């Protein structure tokens, strides 16, 4: 069981690292974003498969956590949040259900396809919600943003 978690952690770490290299993340932040991706995936796995909450909740909380890590890293490394958030959410991204959806459509099985489509859009929506709730909170509570409340494009 613990070994299971360790291997999942390693797998998510490697996956995030690989995509970080593909997206040309700056070298000194590569490992940081891998860690946040792996932690996010472990949290998702724990919430969705151990406690058996809804997928939506698990992914949302995990994405929130990844975004939280990313905001913290962004302040620490003085780089934009996107550098950490994009590789970090790679393990959560609904690639599997997107693939299953398209395959079911093409094999002429619309009911299965709709099911997978719902899953895909719910998961992507949950990731987006997690990220935007986090950045909203950070903008509300960050001191620097309080000082100059001029026109801001809220993400």
């Amino acid at each position: 069981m613990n070994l299971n978690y360790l291997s999942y952690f390693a797998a998510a770490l490697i996956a995030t690292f690989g995509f970080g290299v593909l997206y040309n993340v700056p070298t000194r932040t590569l490992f940081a974003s891998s860690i946040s991706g792996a932690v996010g995936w472990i949290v998702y796995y724990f919430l969705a498969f151990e406690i058996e909450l809804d997928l939506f909740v698990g992914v949302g909380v995990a994405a929130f956590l990844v975004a939280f890590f990313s905001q913290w890293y962004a302040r620490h490394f003085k780089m934009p949040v996107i550098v950490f958030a994009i590789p970090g959410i790679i393990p959560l991204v609904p690639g599997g259900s997107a693939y299953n959806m398209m395959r079911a459509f093409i094999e002429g099985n619309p009911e299965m396809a709709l099911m997978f489509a719902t899953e895909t859009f719910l998961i992507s929506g949950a990731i987006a919600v997690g990220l935007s709730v986090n950045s909203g909170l950070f903008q509300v509570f960050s001191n620097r943003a309080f000082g100059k409340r001029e026109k801001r494009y809220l993400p």
Partner: protein
Amino acid sequence: MQKYPVADILDVCVEAGRVMLENGAETYRVEDTLYRIAKSYNLVYINVFVVPTALILTVQGSDGQDHTELLRMTDRQTNLEKVSMVNDLSRQLAQRALPPAKVKVKLLNIKNTPRNFSRWQSNLAIALACGGFPLLFGGTYTDIIPAVVAGGLGHIVYEAVNAWTNVSFFAEMVASFFIGLLAVLFISLGFGQDINIIIIASVMSLVPGMAITNSFRDLMAGHLLAGVAVLAKALLTAGAIGIGIAMVLTFL
């Protein structure tokens, strides 16, 4: 009062926007950065409009004349280092407005920065990343090696076909067809257990999960055009992958 001609400032803004948009920054970030750069040169009535394929910027100089520049984007890739470098540059400009000629040189430097990793290193990294996904999707350890081989080779095929034909739909279709063939081959040779797990893990480098998520973020931020455009591209990509895999699974 501006110290520099408005046309030069606009050139700098558009060039910065081009670098950011080319390298996969979100549209709201591009709009925000351009707004800040233009503001740091004391321009007024700044309006920026960015969609994934185009960029329009209108400003008014102190002489009361409006200036507009339009940029049409064709190809996009993801290079987060350049995005972060342009971000840094815009922060520097917010503190002290440099002459546009100097900024242009800096932007050219950013543009010519080589990638951190060679093509082979990034292909190897993608292959390893595909090896991580079988476990995440509930597969077994035996699925890892087929996923590494199929994912790595599939990504190489995708890059080659994309560079050759310049049609990403076709490149994704061919690459996923190739991945499907490899997966069938591995299963029939006795490596790996679940063909679906192997295929899903190997196509992860092509699958538009990232694009779907980004489109939702754009939609939530109120950038309806950008969000819908990215979503359409993502669905097209998903369709290409589905067709490629379905060709293998129906004919074999």
